[in-house]
């Protein structure tokens, strides 16, 4: 706290544009650097592990195959992961850090792109973790004498990774659209609850196009073929559309 530190004359920096990799590193630090995010990531890891208890504890009700263990790990991983990504997308507005972020990079679209990329990175790590957990559990269970059918096929591996990425991206899209942590989390879970309506026989047909619980279920199980249009429709509805509107809103919103 001394004035003498600055004996040197004022710098005149020839500043060059911020490379995207640097924005990405900053967004990665933000996504993983806050206390709430760290707890949620730890909890998401725990729910991934805990979900494996279901095929383990109910061998007569749950199919005993490598694919089944993988499916349950994917379901466990995606309970809280979207919330981490909602926090990352909304903190700029709810914690008002948009003020310093956008005065460091006024090209808001680049910040948003870095945020989405960081979110996808976190989802990808979550997917790798889920894969590793399910493989370890299968190996351990077999060693303990459990009869588990052959491991998952490649479409199933790929499916579970894409499933985790897509589910995380719904959180990203809701956060980008709503700019408010509480509203985005509530809407995200309310959407999940609203999807239960599609169990009503009259709505069942529509549900196959709208309900990500159903369409992404096909993704998770590697059953893409024949469902491509339905998976794409629900993705446009719950990811592309909110993300596009949220993008436009972020670019235009006045920061207070």
């Amino acid at each position: 706290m001394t004035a003498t530190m600055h004996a040197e004359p004022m710098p005149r920096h020839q500043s060059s544009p911020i490379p995207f990799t640097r924005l990405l590193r900053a967004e990665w630090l933000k996504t993983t650097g806050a206390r709430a995010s760290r707890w949620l990531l730890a909890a998401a890891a725990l729910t991934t592990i805990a979900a494996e208890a279901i095929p383990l504890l109910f061998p007569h009700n749950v199919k005993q195959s490598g694919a089944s263990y993988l499916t349950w790990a994917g379901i466990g991983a995606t309970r809280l992961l979207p919330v981490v990504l909602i926090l990352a997308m909304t903190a700029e507005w709810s914690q008002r850090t948009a003020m310093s972020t956008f005065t460091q990079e006024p090209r808001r679209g680049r910040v948003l792109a870095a945020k989405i990329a960081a979110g996808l990175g976190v989802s990808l790590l979550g997917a790798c973790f889920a894969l590793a957990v399910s493989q370890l559990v299968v190996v351990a269970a077999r060693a303990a004498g459990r009869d588990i059918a052959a491991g998952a096929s490649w479409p199933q591996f790929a499916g579970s990774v894409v499933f985790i990425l897509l589910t995380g991206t719904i959180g990203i899209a809701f956060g980008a659209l709503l700019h408010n942590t509480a509203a985005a989390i509530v809407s995200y879970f309310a959407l999940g609850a609203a999807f239960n309506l599609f169990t009503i026989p009259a709505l069942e047909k529509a549900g196959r196009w709208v309900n990500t619980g159903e369409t992404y279920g096909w993704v998770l199980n590697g059953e893409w073929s024949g469902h491509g249009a339905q998976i794409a429709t629900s993705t446009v509805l719950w990811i592309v559309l909110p993300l596009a509107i949220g993008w436009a809103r972020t670019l235009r919103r006045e920061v207070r």
Partner: protein
Amino acid sequence: MITVTSLTKRYGPIAAVDDVTFTCEPGTITGFLGPNGAGKSTTLRMITGLAWPDAGRATIAGRVFAALPNPARIVGTLLDASALHNGRTGRTTLYIAATMAGVPVSRVQILLDEVGLASAAQRRVGTYSLGMRQRLALAQALIGDPEVLILDEPANGLDPEGIAWIRSLLRDFADRGGTVLLSSHLLAEVQATADHLVVISTGQIVARGAMADLLASTGLIVRAADHAGLRRLLTQCSVPFAARTDDALRVDTSTGIDAAHIAALAVRAGLPLLELRAADGADLEHLFLSLTSPAATLTTEVTR
């Protein structure tokens, strides 16, 4: 260098900022004053690219903010010390800013030391007092080693030692050739720190210019041990003055009389003066209130 030209912003039919023009030169500290709701923050938001003007423009180092390639290397901004993430530590906050700005990570520790937060660096910002948040926000503004600083109420919540520290920091920054635009309601603090003033009221500029010139128009404080003798002298020389509650006199300088003139008169009359200075403190307040009260129609313009 900050150049603001005819900046205008309307919210519905109301002009929050109406044709505001001023410049901040390198080597100066410009105090930006105005009552609540006068349009100060809106002006600062438009200068820093957080809001868009309906007309006019603002440039920093010759470019509009949105065209600065890596703004933190040119201009440091502290617009609201409460706009920090409560869940991050002080160190992480600066680390993220340093990463974006592309400056060496060693600057984080240097700035933590400089703003006096080294011992609190590992604590979450949510546990910080307002003064600590101000210090962290200031460190964040300084992270890119900028040549321009734009600060909104930076002394808010600081203790007297902190206020003295920020004053010397800003003075030093300007003396090195930096440009400072400083908004504050602490008028005595602005008077002690700034050398130029821009005053706005209901969105319009009501005064701008060098502080010394603007305050000179509000008078001089003169005091002598021989109180009656001083009154007699000033009356004889037709110097307009008013008595104050203490035994000093307040000389009206609107007629062009300055401190040198008073000093010369006193020397010639053999009358020792105890005090001869620009009216300050309450007088910036006086100037401020006279300019910004609803009844004020006066526009003061002093250009040098």
